[in-house]
């Protein structure tokens, strides 16, 4: 038994981590807020050069043909950096390969293409503004995924402005795509991003409470602060292995993969939601400003906790899977 990344998996993650540390500081996330796609696009292009956007794409289609166990640590780093844009959806959608509209895959592999997904098919889609391809459906792996060919987009204000929310009306004829593991990959990728966001919020908060003084001492020396952060650290330490296990289950075709993926989303969503509220509380009024970086990551965490099925939905899915005779 061994439960850890292989040397190659860790190496690939480290490449992505180093790139993001150098090229995607919080200013780039802020640039995403200010609607400066060029600053963000540069990072996307560099990630694409490493092969990230084509990580799941077959070799003959120009991808790396790697699996979810490679994907999860990479998307965790992307979550940590807070990189704006639909990277989870783009990597997931790119795996549909030649089934995508002509030219879309090439654009994705070059880092210029963006795939947006309306997974619950409700006409509201994150990253709809600026999307190269818009996919709809796939919810719970039970509905077909469709390419929406012509759309009429109307931007919608979102709490996290990098989410580029939009409502759309589709006029074109939807083209059905093979679903397979599309849904589970979207859920898994979002879970990975959530654990990264949670860790970023923890790190930001540890830094802040170590520097900020009240009553003549760092506020991080107060137990009320320490204990909140210890609980958050535990939630992250518990969620991360659960996300990695789900990746392994998907990659190996484990019959319990669906349960493991839902479990990953529950634990990652809970850790990230806790991270968002705890970090704001421990920053005091500074946490209630847009001046502090906390809000960039906290708002993303809350948005992603609700995307690809919120905590309650996935918890009910696990409950149903555990009920004898009700296995899917």
């Amino acid at each position, binding site marked *: 038994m061994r*439960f850890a990344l292989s040397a190659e998996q860790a190496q690939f993650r480290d490449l992505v981590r180093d790139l993001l540390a150098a090229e995607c500081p919080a200013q780039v996330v802020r640039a995403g807020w200010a609607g400066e796609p060029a600053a963000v696009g540069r990072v996307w292009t560099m990630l694409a050069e490493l092969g990230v956007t084509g990580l799941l794409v077959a070799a003959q289609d120009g991808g790396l043909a790697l699996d979810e166990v490679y994907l999860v640590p990479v998307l965790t780093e992307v979550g940590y950096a807070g990189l704006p844009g639909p990277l989870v959806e783009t990597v997931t959608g790119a795996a549909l390969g030649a089934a995508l509209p002509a030219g879309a895959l090439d654009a994705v592999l070059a880092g210029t293409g963006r795939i947006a997904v309306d997974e619950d098919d409700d006409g509201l889609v994150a990253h709809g503004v600026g999307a190269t391809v818009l996919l709809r459906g796939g919810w719970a792996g039970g509905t077909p995924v469709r390419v929406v060919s012509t759309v009429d987009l109307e931007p919608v204000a979102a709490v996290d402005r990098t989410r580029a929310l939009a409502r759309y009306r589709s006029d074109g004829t939807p083209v059905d795509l093979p679903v397979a593991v599309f849904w589970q990959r979207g859920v898994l990728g979002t879970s990975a991003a959530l654990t990264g966001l949670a860790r970023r919020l923890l790190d930001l908060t540890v830094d802040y409470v*170590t520097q900020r003084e009240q009553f003549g001492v760092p506020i991080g020396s107060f137990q009320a*602060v320490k204990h909140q952060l210890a609980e958050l650290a*535990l939630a992250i330490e518990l969620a991360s292995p659960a996300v990695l296990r789900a990746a392994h289950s998907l990659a190996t075709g484990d019959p319990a993969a669906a349960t493991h993926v839902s479990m990953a989303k529950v634990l990652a969503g809970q850790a990230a939601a806790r991270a968002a509220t705890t970090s704001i509380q421990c920053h005091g009024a500074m946490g209630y400003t847009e001046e502090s970086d906390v809000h960039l990551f906290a708002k993303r965490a809350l948005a992603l906790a609700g995307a690809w099925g919120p905590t309650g939905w996935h*918890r009910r899915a696990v409950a149903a899977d*555990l*009920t004898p005779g009700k296995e899917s």
Partner: protein
Amino acid sequence: MSYSPEERRFRDQARSWLADNVPARPLPSGDTREGFAAHVEWERRLFDAGWSVVSWPRAYGGREASLWEWLIFEEEYHRAGAPARVTQNGIFLLAPTLFEFGTPDQQDRYLPAMAAAEQLWCQGWSEPGAGSDLAAITSRAVRDEAAGGWRLSGQKTWTTRGAFCTHLFGLFRTDQEQSRHRGLTYFLVPLDAQGVTVNGFTRLDGDEGFADVFLDEVFVPDEDVLGGVGNGWRVAMATTGSERGLSLRSPGRFLATAERLVALSVERTGAVTEDVAQAWMDAQAYQLMTLSQVTGLADGGELGAASSLSKLCWSELDVRLHESAAGLLGAEAEVAGPWSKGLLFALGGRIYAGTNEIQRNIVAERLLGLPRR
């Protein structure tokens, strides 16, 4: 992430032995006098079959099992509903210390007898004035040069199964000039020695599982000092990790409780409720965190303060599992039985092995690097 053929064979072996040998009806509680005797009998059966200390060297009755096999054994043990280990304070808490600090003579005198449940050990750390603040220990050991040893006096309390055990390991102050963590020494004390008085008393769960141990100039020879005079704190702390994490409360125990909870939910409601699903996931998560920690250990790393994360995790998890069961049982939750008793016991889990408040301090200071006060 999969078990090797040898590991799977080990699991099969453990499973089939347990299936043939675990008593069909649960034994009376090991925290009562009659129940304790029945448990000791069970421990001897385990030992005779080579299952009492699987990870130990063969010379002391073990199987030299790897950490993975140890976790597998624990999973199977709890899955089979086998009796609670009344030898745990010896084999899980003292033995790691003996392996690390004991002289060859101490290892020979104590390890085999402990494995065979002939010597039954209790932990004598806490005192009425020294709980979380263990360094406030006032029980003392005074040098008896002529006799070649020490005279121990003082009171230990909340000593688990102290009234039924044969031996106590504990911390005593050998240097009265020194305070706090300095001047403490780790002693191995037979409870039938002259000057020892043990009074059992009742715990929250209704059993006589606690004891006060009074010592009045109890003689302990030099050869029963563990790890050197004045080194008590370091020796004791070196193995607190065992108590907080892996060895005392490995995931198998909680996975088994989670499976029972799932069955209870189906029996009571016809389905698995959301609350039960959450508790089940939390138990799985503890196992996965442990698997990743054990991989780190197997790769030569150290657990360090991460054992405090484990302690927080399993103790809170145990409460959640039992609260969830109480929710399903409704008005029946007050009936004395395994679930209600388990809930009371789970509340103790937040207190022993270092309270959870202390563990959160440790996580914050040592893992996150927050400033001490």
